[in-house]
């Protein structure tokens, strides 16, 4: 017998499967939360930021499109500005030169993540959506590490990211597939 709500059932099955997939794909977003949790200098804002990052990643993958494709590379690239400043902070800040080293670490990490996302965007069909989503997620992930050091470090990381990612994404070859 044909169920009268078959279309609705099929839609529910589809949405549930997308949500499952989203949870799975957003799992790397739990790593920043773990890092923040284990950090001795963690703040409540950082913890909230990490939880919100996971929720946003799930939402983006569930919604689909180029933004969903950007989630995994962005979370991977974001680990650099998340971890490098924290390592530098713990290694050098006891012996002076803290500000200089931390700004340098955030800038370098932002540039590295920018190169990664810029190159990835260049091979995408909807590179603008991919690049913007990727950029937001990288800066968000990186901010969880750099924001603990100061506003200047955070700004330096974001600026370095944009300065490297944008030209690489724009200069990439045109992708014909639609």
């Amino acid at each position: 017998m044909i169920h009268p709500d078959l279309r609705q059932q099929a839609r529910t099955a589809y949405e549930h499967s997308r949500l499952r997939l989203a949870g799975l794909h957003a799992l790397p977003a739990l790593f920043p939360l773990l890092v923040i949790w284990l950090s001795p200098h963690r703040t409540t804002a950082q913890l909230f930021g990490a939880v919100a990052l996971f929720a946003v990643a799930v939402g983006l993958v569930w919604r689909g499109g180029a933004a969903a494709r950007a989630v995994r590379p962005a979370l991977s690239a974001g680990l650099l500005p998340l971890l490098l400043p924290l390592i530098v902070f713990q290694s050098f800040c006891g012996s002076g030169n803290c500000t200089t080293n931390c700004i340098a670490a955030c800038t370098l990490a932002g540039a590295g993540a920018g190169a990664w996302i810029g190159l990835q965007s260049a091979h995408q069909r909807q590179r603008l959506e991919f690049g913007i989503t990727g950029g937001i997620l990288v800066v968000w992930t990186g901010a969880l590490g750099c924001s603990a050091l100061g506003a200047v470090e955070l700004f330096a990381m974001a600026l370095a990211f944009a300065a490297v990612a944008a030209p690489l994404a724009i200069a990439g070859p045109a992708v014909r597939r639609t």
Partner: protein
Amino acid sequence: MDEATRRQLSLWMSALAEGDRTAFDPMFDALWPFFRALARKWIGDPQEADDAAQQALLKVFERASEFEAGCEALPWLVAVVANECRTLRQRKKRRREEALDVDTGTTPESDFEAVLEVLGHLSTQDQIALRAAWFGEAAPGAPVTLRKRLQRATSRFRALWSSHHDPS
């Protein structure tokens, strides 16, 4: 199914895999009659075929996100329907076999004799295990051993029964 429809199905599946919800309704409208026709061809009984088609349709949408964009969708879709039809047929066959269970006490006399006849072809150990379970006769051994022996004897009985009474 013509080449254009095949290509369209692949495009819709790729769109669904990417999360494009606009492909849902056209995909549903194209798949339902196609699945129903396939299932009716393979199963025969319209009601059972509709059940199989329905299950297959739900499975396709459940797994649409796993579809690899750019691949040919038709072979995968047909495989899902075929699998559902096979599952339905196996379930039906199992139900038929379970109906033979003498524990229910509803088996007609002729069937009972047929059961005894098949039982006679099994090894003595299998016969003891099955008789203990079905007729409450005594059987030596620990309960765990008896349970395992009964499982093995039941599967051997089923296989033998199928070869005697249901060659298909």
